[in-house]
C-alpha cells in the first residue's frame, strides 16, 4: 500500500470509567485504528459500544489509559488538553446548541471558529475580509444565512444552527472532522439537508472525517470506509471495495459473526 498518508493513528487506546468501583466500565478496549488522509469513515454500533468515547478521546475531552497513543499527522498529541486537541479536530455534536453560541451572532460565531488552534490577541475579531470569507462559506449552504451575519444564533432553527456548527467546525480546515450523530436530533428533511451539506463540505475541503451514526443505511451510503464497534472494540472494518454492494442484512450478519451475538438483542438500538 504505502501510497496513502496516515492522518490519524490510534494505538492501543483503552478507556476505563469509574475504575476500581462496582461501576467500572471498559468503554474502549485496546482500539487500534489507522485513518488515511481524506478518509470518510462511518462508525456504527449499538449504545455503549464506545463510539462517542472514541471521538471524545480523539477530541481530547479525556485522555486514554496509560500506554495508548493518539497521533495526528505524525504528531503525538496524547494527554494534551481538549483546547489543544482543537487545533487538529473540528467537531459537530448531536445537540446543535453545543456547537454554537446562542447569544452571539453568526459573524461572531464564525470569527471565533476561523481562529481554531491559533493564538488569539487584541486584534478586532472580524473585519470586511472576514465577512467576505464567512459569506462565501455560508452561501453554498443555500439557507440564506450569508445575508444574516448579524442574526443571533439563538434565533435560528436547529437545522440552521447545525449548519452553522458544521461551517464552524470546518472553516479553519482542521485535519480531522468528528461528527457525533450530528443529524440525530433533526427532523428527517432537515437531517437530509445537513447530511448533504456535510458531504459537500467534506468533499470540497478534503477533510478526513469520522462520522458516528445509528443509521446503518447512512453508514453504507456515505463515506469510503465503515467501522462497526461493539463493547469497546472495533469488530468490523470494511474498506470501500469490501462494502460496495453490501446491504443492511449483510451488515447484520457481519455484526453477528464478529460479536458472537444475535442481532435481535441490539435491533432496537440500531436503526435500519
Amino acid at each position: 500500500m504505502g501510497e496513502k498518508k496516515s492522518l490519524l493513528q490510534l494505538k492501543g487506546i483503552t478507556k476505563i470509567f469509574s475504575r476500581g468501583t462496582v461501576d467500572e466500565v471498559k468503554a474502549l478496549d485496546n482500539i487500534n485504528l489507522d485513518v488515511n488522509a481524506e478518509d470518510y469513515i462511518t462508525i456504527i454500533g449499538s449504545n455503549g459500544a464506545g463510539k462517542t468515547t472514541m471521538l471524545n478521546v480523539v477530541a481530547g475531552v479525556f485522555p486514554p489509559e496509560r500506554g495508548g497513543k493518539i497521533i495526528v499527522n505524525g504528531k503525538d498529541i496524547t494527554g494534551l488538553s481538549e483546547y489543544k486537541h482543537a487545533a487538529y479536530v473540528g467537531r459537530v455534536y448531536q445537540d446543535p446548541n453545543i456547537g454554537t453560541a446562542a447569544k452571539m451572532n453568526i459573524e461572531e460565531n464564525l470569527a471565533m471558529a476561523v481562529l481554531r488552534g491559533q493564538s488569539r490577541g487584541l486584534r478586532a475579531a472580524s473585519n470586511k475580509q472576514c465577512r467576505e470569507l464567512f459569506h462565501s462559506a455560508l452561501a453554498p449552504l443555500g439557507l440564506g444565512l450569508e445575508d444574516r451575519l448579524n442574526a443571533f444564533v439563538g434565533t435560528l432553527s436547529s437545522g440552521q444552527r447545525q449548519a452553522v456548527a458544521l461551517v464552524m467546525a470546518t472553516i479553519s480546515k482542521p485535519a480531522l472532522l468528528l461528527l457525533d450523530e450530528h443529524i440525530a436530533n433533526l427532523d428527517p428533511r432537515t437531517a437530509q439537508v445537513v447530511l448533504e451539506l456535510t458531504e459537500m463540505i467534506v468533499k470540497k475541503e478534503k477533510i478526513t472525517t469520522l462520522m458516528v451514526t445509528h443509521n446503518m443505511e447512512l453508514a453504507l451510503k456515505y463515506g469510503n470506509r465503515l467501522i462497526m464497534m461493539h463493547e469497546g472494540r472495533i469488530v468490523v472494518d470494511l474498506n470501500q471495495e469490501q462494502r460496495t454492494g453490501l446491504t443492511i442484512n449483510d451488515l447484520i450478519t457481519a455484526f453477528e459473526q464478529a460479536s458472537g451475538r444475535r442481532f435481535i438483542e441490539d435491533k432496537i438500538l440500531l436503526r435500519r
Partner: protein
Amino acid sequence: MPPIIQGVLNTSISEGLVYAFVTIGVFLTFRVLAFPDLTVDGSFVVGGSIVALMIHVGGYNPFLATIAAFMGGLAAGSITGLLNTKLRLPALLAGILMMVGLYSVNLLIMGRPNTPMLRDITIFDSVASWFGMERSTLLVIIVFAVIAFIVFMVLNWFLRTEIGLTLRATGDNEQMVRSLGVDTDKNILLGCSISNGLVALSGALVAQNQQFCDVNMGVGMIVMGLAAVIIGEALVHPRGVASMLLAAFAGTFLYRLFITIALRLGLAPGNLKLITALLVIIALAIPYIQKKLRHEWMPPAVRW
C-alpha cells in the same frame, strides 16, 4: 431648575457614573461569564483601602494610588478565578470566601477600620489645581465622566477583539469555546480579574469623593450592582456590546436616582439595603411568576 431637583440630579449623575463600574463588573461576571461572583463586596473596599493607605498614609500621587487600587482589584478577582478554575470551588463559594477573607485583608491594608482623607490630595484636588479651580460637584462629575468614557471605550473595544469574543462566548457555551481551541479557564480568570478591577476602581473613586474609606463600605455592593444590571436590561434590552455597556450606565443612574429621591423623601438610610434586596428579589421573581401564570415549564431552581 429648582435647586432641589438640581441637587438630586447632580447626586444621581455623579453616583450613577462612579458606581457604574461596579455594575459593569457585576455584569461581566454574572451575565457575560455566567459566573456569580460575590467577591465584589470585598474588592470594592480593596480599592478604597489601597487609595486610603497610599494617599493618606503614604502621600502618593492620587492617580498612582487609583491605578494601584485597580490593580489590587485585578489581583483579588484573579484569586477568585483561580479558586474556581484550578481548585474547582463552586463560583458562589469562591466569591463568598474571597469576600470574607478580603474583609481582614482590607483591615490589614488600612491598619484600622476607617481612614479619613479630608486633608489629603485626591484626584479631584489634583485636577482642580491643574485648572486653577475649586473642587466642586461639577468638577467631580466631569472627572467621573472622563474616566467612565475611557472605561466604556476600552471595554467596547476589548469585547470585540479576538480574546474578547471568546470571553463573551465562555459564559454562553463553554464547551464550544474549548472545542475551538481556547483555554476557557484563562478566560474565566481574565473576566473575574477585569470585573473586580473595575469594582476596586469604583471603590477608589468613591473613597476619594467622600474623603474617607470605611472597611464596611462594600457591604451590599453586589446587590446594588445586580439591581442596576436588572434595571439597565429592562430599560435598554441590550443586544450588542455597546448597548450592554450603556445599559449598565443607564441602570446605575436610574438606581441612584431612585435612591436619592427616596432619601430626600425621608427614607431612613438604614432601610436602603432592604429596599435594594427587595427590588432584586422582585425583579428576579417576576419572570418565574409570569411563566407560572401562563403554565409554562420552568427549570428547577439552581442550587449549586
